[in-house]
């Protein structure tokens, strides 16, 4: 008898140890990013990442703004396309699809979410880039990055919107229908307001994914360090920059790459904190 009580205490401690280690992984990652970027953070004022003349890390100029603008433009463009597509997809599953189509379509979106980024990148490289090239060379461009990113974050937006819409109590909808509201009137007037915070949280999560995405963008965006002037100009994102230069970076250059990694991580942390805060207010 007493042995099993002791067992319980033992189990609890083993589980606790596991959980502590899991939680420490996060701190370990932060710590190592900080340690590795310290040589640069210690010597260089952060303002130089914005005011240096150009990105020539070997010569000691570290202007990150072209990469920042590339990242933000690509992510915003992708969100602009993916939000309407994702929300209509979720509406289709919840309200419009005939029963035999709703589940297959949802499954398809879930499978789309499982396709690796490198495959999206490869498909973009072999199919989209030549198409865009015919339209306006060189093909590898901001537009290609936006299109590929759209495909990648579409499932995130669809699935979070779907669960937010599903969580709207059905009595609301029954009552709305009983009042003679049209289907769109019901969605627009009842379902959207009730599901709003869930949808917004999903969009923020998707934004985080878009900002952090590396491989797909790296393969289609052209990777020229510049402020793009149009949709057809090549760009380089922060994440792609790390992947491209890490292989040969030494000393301060390597540290700067870790700084940009730290920057990415902080951006995503802020976004996910926002998403969870908004998601908590969701109508339950």
């Amino acid at each position: 008898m007493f042995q099993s009580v002791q067992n319980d205490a033992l189990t609890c401690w083993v589980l606790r140890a596991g959980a502590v280690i899991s939680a420490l992984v996060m701190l370990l990652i932060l710590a190592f990013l900080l340690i590795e970027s310290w040589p640069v953070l210690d010597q260089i004022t952060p303002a130089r990442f914005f005011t240096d003349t150009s990105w020539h890390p070997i010569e000691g100029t570290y202007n990150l703004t072209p990469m920042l603008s590339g990242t933000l433009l690509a992510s915003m463009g992708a969100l602009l396309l993916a939000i309407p597509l994702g929300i209509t997809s979720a509406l289709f599953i919840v309200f419009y699809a005939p029963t035999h189509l709703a589940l297959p379509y949802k499954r398809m979106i879930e499978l789309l979410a499982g396709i690796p980024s490198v495959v999206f990148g490869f498909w973009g490289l072999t199919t989209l880039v030549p198409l865009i090239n015919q339209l306006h060379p060189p093909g590898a461009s901001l537009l290609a990055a936006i299109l590929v990113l759209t495909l990648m974050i579409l499932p995130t937006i669809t699935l979070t919107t779907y669960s937010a819409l599903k969580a709207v109590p059905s009595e609301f909808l029954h009552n709305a229908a009983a009042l003679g509201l049209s289907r769109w009137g019901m969605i627009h007037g009842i379902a959207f307001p009730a599901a709003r915070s869930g949808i917004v949280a999903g969009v923020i999560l998707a934004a985080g994914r878009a900002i952090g995405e590396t491989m797909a963008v790296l393969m289609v965006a052209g990777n020229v360090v510049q402020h793009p002037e149009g949709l057809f100009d090549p760009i380089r994102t922060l994440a792609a920059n790390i992947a491209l230069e890490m292989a040969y970076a030494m000393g301060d250059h390597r540290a700067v790459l870790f700084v940009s990694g730290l920057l990415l991580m902080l951006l995503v942390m802020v976004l996910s904190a926002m998403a969870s805060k908004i998601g908590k207010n969701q109508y339950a």
Partner: protein
Amino acid sequence: MNQTDNNRENPFTLGPLQMGPACCDPQPVIQVENLSLQYDGKTALDNVTLDIYRGCITALIGPSGCGKTSFLSAINRLTDLIPECKVQGCIRVDGRNIYEPTHNVQALRRQIGMVFQKPTPFPLSIRRNITLPLREHGITQRTQVETITEQVLSDVGLWDEVCDRLDTAALSLSGGQQQRLCIARALALNPQILLMDEPCSALDPIASGVVEDLICRLRGRYTIVIVTHNLAQARRIANYAAFFWVKERAGQLVEFGRCQHIFESPTHELTAAYVNGARG
């Protein structure tokens, strides 16, 4: 289905008090003193003092939300599992305060079986439902486990129905069978006391009758505390009855006494109104 029970020739008369040997000489086995219970600071049960007698069936009656289930959970310390639940006062089982820190909870729960409102067989095989708790309590010898399994399944009248499919899923049984399996599972640990939380209310009338017969047959061997909303049932099976009522949002014990007394000549006017169907 028609187990006749010699203890129960005429179920509609009162006065089965003399049946079980232990009931002739009532000794308290559970003594509840000044029990109060709070969930999250809100009082669910206020200052209840009550004795439960050995070998008898005690029915707890009263409207919903008056703390009957909380009272049951306090007896086998299931309240420990509910966060933010605070218990004050003292419950003695066989003279020992079960809320002493040194009291072994698992031994206590082995001594006190419990059956819930909704049948809750584990999603395992029928056999494993009974052997799992046995093994947990150190009864691992195969022949012994098998004897006990057959014994308790026979006790609840389930053996003939399931003996050829002990390894099928317990969830494939009907509702009444599931509930009897849960009783058998509790009996397998050879408890002294059985707590039953509306064991018939989730069942259809026929299954409910079978379970009720079973409870009557267990009288004497076990001390039974049963919560029921079915007053006719309480009247049919119980030796003692305790009437709970909600006052100022907290459950309180209004009256406790022999079943006949509570149902025919209650002292308290609330009790009279409730058992006659005027209130609650």
